[in-house]
Every structure is written in C-alpha cells, then in structure tokens.
C-alpha cells in the first residue's frame, strides 16, 4: 500500500523550511577557500534566487526592447513588463497607485532625487531632521542641499543601546522643520525606528516624513498607507533583486508638486527650444531609458519574497537574531554594538581589540563573509566611539548553523591574535 499524502494540508505548512529556500539560491552552494560559503552580508546586498535570474534572462532573451516609445510588438511587451513591475512594487508597499512609484537606480538615487526636487522648494534657514543612525546616503544629499540653499540639518540621537530617542526627536521639531528623513532600520545597529511615532509627531508639526527603507522593507516590510509617511525609498538588490534598480515612493500630492530632477527623454510632454512641458509623475522623474530588465527582476524578487511570505521571513530572522545575540554573547571578548529593543537581523560587533578588517580577513578563510568597516555610517561610528565594526547580517536563507560557524571562526582570530 502506498502512502497517501493529503496535499490540501501538507505537514508543516506553517513551518519555514530554510533548506528549501536555500536551494533556490545558486550562490549559496558555492565554496570559498575550500569551505562552504557562510554568507552573512545580506544587509550590504542579498544573494539572488533562481527565479530572479531566470526572469531577467527571459526578459533579455525574448522580451527585450526599449520601453514607452516603440510601436512594435516587442517594445509593447517590454513596456507591459516594466509597468507590471511597477504595479507589483505598488502592491508590495500598499501604495494607492502605481503612479506613486518612481523607478530610480538605487535608494541613494531616490534620496538624491528628493533632495534636489523637493529640496528646491526649501529656503535658507529651513530645517531637516535626520538621525545619527543614517547611512551616508541619507546624510550627504542633505549636506549638498545645505551647501546650495542654506538649510540646516538637525540630528536626532539614539541611546547607548541604539534605541531611537523619540522624546529627543520631538524636541527638534519646530516651525522651520520642512522634512524628517530617517532610516526605517539602521544598517549598522539593526535598530527599528518607531516609524509610526515619528510620522505622528512630524505630521502634528505639519512636517512630511521620508524613510530610508533600504533595510526596513527587507526585514520589516512596509504598508505606506497604514504608516502614512510621505516618501519611502529602497533598493532592489537588498530585497534579493538585481542591482541598478531603486524605488522612490511618494504621496501623489507631493510628487505632483515637485519639479523634475533630471531632464531628458521619456519625462517630457512637449519640447521646443523656447519651452518644454513635463509629464505627470512618475514619468516626470524617469528621464532616459530606465533599468528595464532590472525592473522585471525586481518584480520577480517581489513575487518570490511574497511567495515565501514576508511575515515568515521576518519571523525566521527574528528567531535567528535572538539565537545570534545569545550565541555571540558566549564568545569571549565579543562586544555587540546595538541592542535596541526593536531590532532587525543585523549584528555589529567588536572583537577584543582586533580591528574589524583583520577579523573579516581571518574568518573569510573559514568561508564566513561579514562586512567590516564603517558601513557608510561614520557619524554613527563616532557616536559609539569606534572607527569600525564587523557586521553579520541575516537574510531569509541564513541558518543557525551559520551563526555557529561565525562564532567558531572567531576562535581562529583569537588563535592568531592571542
């Protein structure tokens, strides 16, 4: 007699099968220095599932032409696919409409777009609030804007554990605060900013809010209507999608008011040498040939993440984080930087007085890939009195065994440095 499997109620339907997920990522079966790759650098850039790679190959092989201009079949297919990707992004973030989704080439590019376009409506003496946790991508564009227009930048602090200090943030809000631009999740500390509180306080002050969601959308997800922020930016390659594609979501009432950033083809309505008129958003902000196939790849990444389940990914990462915080606390000489109450799957640490580059080089020989350095957040390094840290960051495919491998590899560092 054969076993009968009831397909309508598979055993362990709710269990997250990390090994099944891992099989979808070709890079995870690589060997490095003769050891299985232990990839703990997803916060810098995530590995890609086969579904994304295949979708992009298919797009190049049989669905490729330029978009929005060809009247022939292939261009129509490419245009449709590009716009389907936009619709998928809109749905993934619960945007009101795909028209609120501007494709850029990175989260950095999205912030620069806002800093130029929204920023052009600001005047000397106006203020912008960022936090001390920001990635350089959410600092430098505002400094460049400051140099152009004379705005002021105020910095919201965190406590020694890395918690965002809402009360201190509130004190910075004033009559001249024109924008709050903070990270949803810190790329160094893993701190999850109390985003709803930030929006409530800022809106009470009449101030719009931009979230840098490069890490946030990956680890927490986002519902922009529920959150009610004004801008949310992120990038494809950290969400298991390709590089070269970023997203700017903006409330339509803002996007409609904002002037173009870059000029060129595709963003115009009518051009004469005397006067040019511009298209409505999002086209207004997408000058030139966009990242067509990357958009398709991002759409495939969203499909994949959605199929696995963002909630289940988040739960897996949370469990892994809890495990890692305990496991790494057992490693003598290891000091974790960032113990916020609300924390995503990112663990920065110092190891004795060994420099992070030495740590990273040594554990790489055991196949363990972590990021070492300042993580593009030098002001935050200064805040915690360090020049650099090692950082392990998790993705949907990270396992407990990999956390163990990190802890064991650190023993090699001890062996060499004594």
């Amino acid at each position: 007699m054969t076993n009968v499997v009831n397909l309508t109620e598979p055993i362990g339907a709710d269990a997250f099968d990390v090994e099944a997920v891992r099989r979808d990522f070709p890079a995870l079966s690589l060997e490095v220095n003769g050891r299985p790759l232990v990839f703990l650098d997803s916060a810098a850039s995530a590995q890609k599932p086969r579904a994304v790679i295949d979708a992009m190959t298919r797009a190049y092989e049989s669905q490729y032409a330029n978009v929005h201009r060809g009247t022939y079949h292939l261009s129509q297919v490419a245009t449709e696919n590009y716009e389907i990707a936009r619709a998928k992004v809109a749905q993934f973030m619960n945007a009101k409409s795909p028209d609120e989704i501007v494709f850029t080439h990175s989260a950095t590019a999205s912030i620069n777009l806002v800093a130029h376009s929204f920023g052009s409506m600001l005047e000397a003496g106006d203020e912008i609030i960022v936090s001390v946790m920001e990635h350089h991508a959410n600092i430098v564009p505002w400094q460049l804007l400051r140099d152009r227009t004379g705005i002021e930048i105020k910095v919201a602090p965190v406590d020694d554990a890395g918690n965002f200090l809402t009360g201190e943030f509130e004190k910075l809000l004033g009559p001249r605060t024109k924008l709050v631009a903070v990270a949803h999740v810190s790329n160094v500390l893993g701190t999850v900013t109390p985003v709803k509180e930030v929006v409530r306080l800022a809106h009470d002050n009449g101030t719009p809010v931009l979230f840098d969601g490069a890490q946030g959308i990956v680890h927490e997800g986002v519902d922009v209507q529920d959150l009610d922020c004004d801008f949310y930016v992120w990038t494809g390659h950290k969400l298991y999608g390709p590089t070269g594609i970023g997203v700017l979501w903006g409330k339509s009432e803002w996007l409609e008011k904002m002037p173009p950033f870059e000029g060129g083809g595709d963003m115009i309505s009518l051009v004469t040498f005397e006067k040019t008129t511009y298209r409505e958003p999002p086209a207004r902000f997408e000058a030139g040939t966009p990242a067509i196939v990357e958009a398709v790849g991002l759409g495939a990444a969203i499909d994949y993440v959605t199929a696995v389940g963002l909630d289940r990914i988040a739960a897996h990462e949370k469990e892994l984080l809890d495990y890692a915080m305990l496991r790494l606390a057992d490693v003598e000489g290891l000091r974790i930087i960032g113990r916020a109450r609300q924390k995503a799957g990112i663990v920065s640490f110092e190891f004795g007085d060994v420099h992070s580059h030495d740590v990273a080089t040594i554990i790489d020989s055991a196949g363990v890939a972590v990021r070492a350095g300042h993580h593009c957040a030098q002001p935050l390094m200064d805040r915690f009195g360090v020049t650099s840290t090692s950082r392990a960051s998790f993705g949907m495919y990270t396992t407990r065994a990999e956390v163990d491998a990190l802890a064991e590899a650190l023993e090699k560092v001890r062996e060499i440095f004594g």
Partner: protein
Amino acid sequence: MIDDDLRDLYQEVILDHGKNPRNFRRPADASHEALGNNPLCGDRLTVYLRLDEDRNIRDAAFEGKGCAISIASASMMTDMVKGKSLAEARELFERFHKMCTGDDDGGIADGFEDELEKLKVMSGVRQFPMRVKCATLAWHAMNAAAEGEDAATTE
C-alpha cells in the same frame, strides 16, 4: 587549524608591530605631516616627518587607528626611513609597493637589501588584494607629507 596564507599574513613580527607600534607619537618638531585615509574602512593614520634642509628624514613617527597590517606597516616604515634621504625613502616605497602587489621582479635595489628583507614579512598581503591598501597606507601618507599635501588617500 590556521591556513598557510593567513599565517603568512599575520606573522609574529607583524602582530608584534601591530600591538606595540614603534614611533607611535606626535613629534613636537615635525616639519611635515599628512593624514593617510582609507575611505573604504575609515582607517586614518597621521604620519609626521622632520626633514632637514637637504631633505633627509631626521625623524619619522605616526599616530592613528588601523588594522594590524596598517599599524605594523606604519611602525616598520617609520623605523626604516629615519636617516634616509627622501629620495631613498620613496624608492624604497616603490620597491615595497611592487612586493605587495606581486609585481616585484626579484632584483634587489642597491643599498636596500636589509630593508626589503625585513619588509618581506608584509608580502603576505599579495594573497589578500583587499589588504594591499592597508600595507601601503602609511607609505602613501609619508609621500603626501613630504610633498606638503595635507592628506593622502588609498583610493
């Protein structure tokens, strides 16, 4: 079990210089200084030189933060260039740089046999291309200091 490449990189001499760097100070009478900055990792070393009127290096020292490789390299460099002319120090840097990148032709430049023999402990970085910048940071800063630039970068 530690791999041979790693043992090559982190030889005892390097670990010693890294932990107990020589000339780790700021001389009050320095005539030249420059900041060596590795924007990749945020490491910063300031190299101080005292040059006499004939462009001979009378004193060399450094301060700053960095990995074991960059600190050890700065420590060894400051020891080594003291008493040399600037031209000699630069020639030594050129030879050292080639050693680190694996472009060394194997020939020993006249007068530098001892120095290059000592610097060989740094040549383990060849197997770690990302770390060549760590080994050369202080040397770049020395060059910048001598040329009167405020800062050198490994980029």
